[in-house]
């Protein structure tokens, strides 16, 4: 006290209470601790190296971009939930405290000590604030685990260990600060900048002699540093591992459209003797790394329609079970993931979209399915579908030359009768052969004609895109279909394609480029919305019924098309459209994806029923869909749901056609 108030003198002692030999012990301890951490991380690295080489993103710009978006800004973590809040507190606290400690050691041990003056004051205040955030995050996390116990999160004694050690680090840190302020007799104006320590000192340490405070400081300092050392060593055995592996996976996951699966080459099959993944080591190295990135937050499980419907699948469990197998040295992946789990996936990509560290659950499942197909382990209707795709070129097993049955009486131009078409209207098998879905094809064709679009269909030259085969896991059947269709499309010099099926849309747009087929592909919602905007379609929506839209996964989530289908069914009267709680990119699957359309399902496990209940709850009279499979599943779901009889499922094109007819269906 009594010293002049000189900001430039503001600083504090570092190791002031720690004798030189103790400092040696401290550095040795930290070196050992970090050394052990590195050793464990190297053993993880060796586990990943057991996988097939490659699979990593190689573009550093992509790494950087992703690290900023997903690691630093944590785009996937933010939500209006307690979990997201506590993560923000913990994350920001941990990052700032780590940076602070690093800066301190640079200042102290480096050539130039900058740890004084205004810098020092702001440093102290910042670290104190984020220290509070960090402790608050720990406490909220403990509260959440103790009382809320979200089931998808999972609960283990190690979680308490981790939270306990983190909170202890925060508390001992502040205790060290308070005791230092006390025994060094820091002037109040300076002490105020270390606000938390100062408050502790003022409220709890008054009356303590300087000597006692100094001894207590020494012991608390040691407790704090020993906890830090233990914390480092235990990172690889608890959830904290994601702090290292998360950003690694975020940076290194290959950049690929969400809707595109990885092609398998005959060469790979010849080398490995397998299609897909049988042993854990058949996954590539990035996939193995991704397993270690999982911190078991459970967001994937909460989003999973199969899990919600009571099917034996949780994407989180898939990742965890494979990771546990990896920690045991690998082996038969089917030993830990039952076949029913793999078949239960609708490949709706909700889990992939949720995962904060960008784990590709659907790729893992797809690789394992390919092996099941290779081993002949698929039976019943879906196996028959594959046969029919192979033999009749459509999953319905109908003669392919009946492909134009839907067009009867409509005089629809074909690629032969109208070779100078602008748009190829790709109908898809469902709208070609399913009598209910044929109405989508009819409505779309009628609307395109009314708007004067120059289009043509392929007729019997169109065949299944191979989408169901690829999702079920029959990669080579898919590739055969893809090559055939690409050849047909090239022969007709197709440039632009429009299709009412989001699955065809996704495959044509995102997967055919893998086979040399590059087209400008649009979903019918997109083209219809444009025609409306251009005034080429002027529907009369007066007196229309209330509508809610079910976003198809492969349109909204996978390909980001959210506005167009809404524009098509938009009514001048806004009260006529209603949104379900899960809409847009957060849509909930109808249950038909991933080949599930053709699987047998017990009535208690139907995803479509859950979705139909959600739709009925909006009170709308019409459930609009933009996918023939969604239409099929939702019609079925409504029939199974109380109140579903008051609602009818229609494709957006059918709704628009009815409105257009009211306005007079004439070509412009």
């Amino acid at each position, binding site marked *: 006290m009594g010293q002049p108030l000189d900001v430039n003198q503001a600083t504090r002692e570092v190791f002031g209470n720690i004798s030189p030999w103790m400092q040696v012990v401290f550095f040795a301890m930290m070196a050992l601790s970090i050394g052990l951490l590195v050793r464990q991380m190297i053993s993880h690295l060796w586990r990943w190296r057991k996988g097939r080489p490659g699979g990593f993103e190689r573009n550093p710009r992509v790494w950087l971009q992703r690290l900023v978006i997903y690691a630093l800004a944590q785009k996937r973590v933010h939500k209006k939930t307690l979990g997201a809040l506590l993560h923000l507190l913990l994350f920001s606290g941990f990052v700032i405290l780590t940076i602070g400690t690093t800066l301190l050691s640079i200042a102290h041990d480096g050539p130039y000590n900058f740890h004084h003056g205004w810098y020092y004051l702001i440093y102290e205040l910042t670290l104190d604030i984020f220290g509070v955030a960090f402790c608050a995050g720990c406490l909220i996390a403990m509260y959440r685990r103790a009382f809320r116990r979200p089931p998808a999160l999972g609960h283990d004694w190690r979680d308490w260990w981790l939270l306990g050690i983190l909170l202890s680090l925060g508390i001992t840190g502040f205790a060290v600060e308070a005791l230092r302020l006390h025994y060094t007799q820091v002037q109040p104006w300076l002490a105020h900048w270390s606000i938390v320590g100062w408050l502790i000192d003022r409220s709890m340490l008054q009356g303590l002699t300087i000597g006692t405070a100094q001894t207590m400081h020494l012991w608390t300092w040691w407790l704090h540093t020993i906890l830090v050392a233990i914390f480092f060593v235990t990172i690889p055995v608890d959830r904290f591992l994601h702090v290292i592996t998360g950003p690694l996976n975020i940076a290194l996951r290959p950049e690929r459209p969400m809707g595109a699966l990885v092609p398998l080459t005959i060469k790979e099959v010849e080398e490995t003797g397998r299609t897909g993944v049988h042993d854990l080591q058949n996954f590539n190295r990035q996939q193995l790394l991704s397993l270690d990135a999982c911190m078991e937050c459970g967001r994937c499980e909460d989003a999973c329609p199969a899990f919600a419907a009571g099917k034996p699948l949780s994407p989180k469990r898939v990742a965890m079970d494979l990771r546990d197998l990896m920690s045991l040295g690998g082996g038969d992946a089917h030993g830990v993931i039952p076949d029913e789990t793999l078949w239960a996936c609708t490949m709706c990509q909700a889990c992939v979209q949720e995962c904060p560290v960008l784990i590709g659950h659907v790729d893992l499942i797809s690789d394992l399915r390919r092996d099941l197909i290779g081993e002949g382990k698929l039976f019943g*209707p879906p196996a028959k579908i594959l*046969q029919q795709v192979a033999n009749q070129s459509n999953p*319905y097993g109908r003669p392919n030359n009946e492909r134009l049955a839907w067009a009867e009486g409509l005089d629809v131009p074909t690629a032969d009768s109208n070779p100078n078409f602008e748009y190829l209207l790709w109908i898809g098998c*469902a709208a070609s052969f399913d009598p*209910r879905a044929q109405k989508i094809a009819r409505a779309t064709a009628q609307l395109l004609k009314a708007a004067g679009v120059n289009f043509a269909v392929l007729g019997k030259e169109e065949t299944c895109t191979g989408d169901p085969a690829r999702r079920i896991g029959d990669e080579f059947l898919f590739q055969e279909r893809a090559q055939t269709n690409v050849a047909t499309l090239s022969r007709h010099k197709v440039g632009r394609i429009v299709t009412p099926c989001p699955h065809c849309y996704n495959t044509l747009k995102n997967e055919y480029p893998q086979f040399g087929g590059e087209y400008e592909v649009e979903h019918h919602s997109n083209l219809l919305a444009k025609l409306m905007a251009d005034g080429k379609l002027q529907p009369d929506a007066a007196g229309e019924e209330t509508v809610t839209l079910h976003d198809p996964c492969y349109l909204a989530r996978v390909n980001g098309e959210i506005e167009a289908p809404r524009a098509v069914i938009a009514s001048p009267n806004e009260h006529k459209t209603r949104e379900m709680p899960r809409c847009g990119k957060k849509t909930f699957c109808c249950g038909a994806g991933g080949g599930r359309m053709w699987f047998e399902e017990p009535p208690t496990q139907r995803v479509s029923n859950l979705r139909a209940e959600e739709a009925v709850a909006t009170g709308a009279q019409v459930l609009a869909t933009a996918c023939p499979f969604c239409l*099929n599943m939702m019609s079925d779901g409504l029939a*199974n749901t109380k109140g579903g009889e008051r609602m009818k499922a229609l494709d957006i094109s059918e709704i628009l056609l009815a409105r257009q007819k009211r306005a007079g269906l004439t070509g412009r």
Partner: protein
Amino acid sequence: MAKSLIVIEHGPSGLKRSSLHPMTFARQVGDSYALLLLGHRLDALAPTLQSYDATSVLLADHPALAEPLADRYAAVIAEVACKESAQTVIASSSTFSKDVLPRVAALFEAPMVSDVLAVENIDGVSTYKRATHAGSMLANVRVTSDRCVLTIRPTSFAMPAPSSSLSPIEKLPVDETSLPKGMQFISREERVSDRPDLSDARVVVSGGRPLKDTETFERLVGGLADVLGGAVGATRAAVDCGMVPNDYQIGQTGKIVAPELYIGIGISGAIQHLAGIKDSRVIVAINKDPEAPIFQMATYGLVGDLHQLVPELIEALRRA
């Protein structure tokens, strides 16, 4: 003239009529044939079989054969076939023959052709037609061995006409100790029904959810099936809500039917159901919604209230 051995099937309700159809096949290729009946207490069943021009009606009657255990039955059938110097062993396609005949083929050291739809004599050699790839293609199969085991689709060969002459009945000795004992009979679960089996009925009447409850379903769908001598089927929705048992289900995840006449009552026609009926010769649909997709597939469609139409239809058919 070659000789065939035809395995006849029976159950708690007596002889299975469809298992007699192989005789029509044998007559068509010009074989003489013996009939073989296996089981216990067969005396009541045997006389019916006497009037079909068989060279003999063979009875393997023993308590050890009371239940159709595939390993024992196959051993007996193969032994009888050798003893009778039969060249062909034939049975109708059924779960029974799927279970037993492949074993017979192995023991009898003969190739097997299953689900034969037709037989043709091409250049003096029998050529069997059978469906492959889920019925989308027909394969012509020729057997190069002089022995052969066949199952035939009962729907492809008519019920044989009875004759006035009586075939002799012959009881075969069965040595229980020589029978294999790898299988054990635990229990039998069978739905007793007077109606024909769904998979090979000539007429199928099927109902959907609008029938509301078991009683109405039985009265309308069952009633119409009975006046037409048909089998009863249902949609997945009707099965799901517990209106009818699981084995009624027709469609992608149920049975595939191809009757001469299919009548769908209160069925809108989801593609999953249509997948199970698409090969029916005549499809009749009764539904109150004129927009129902099933009408696009139906040969005849009737738009109206099924609760009014179906009873009238049953009444009219009864009077006819």
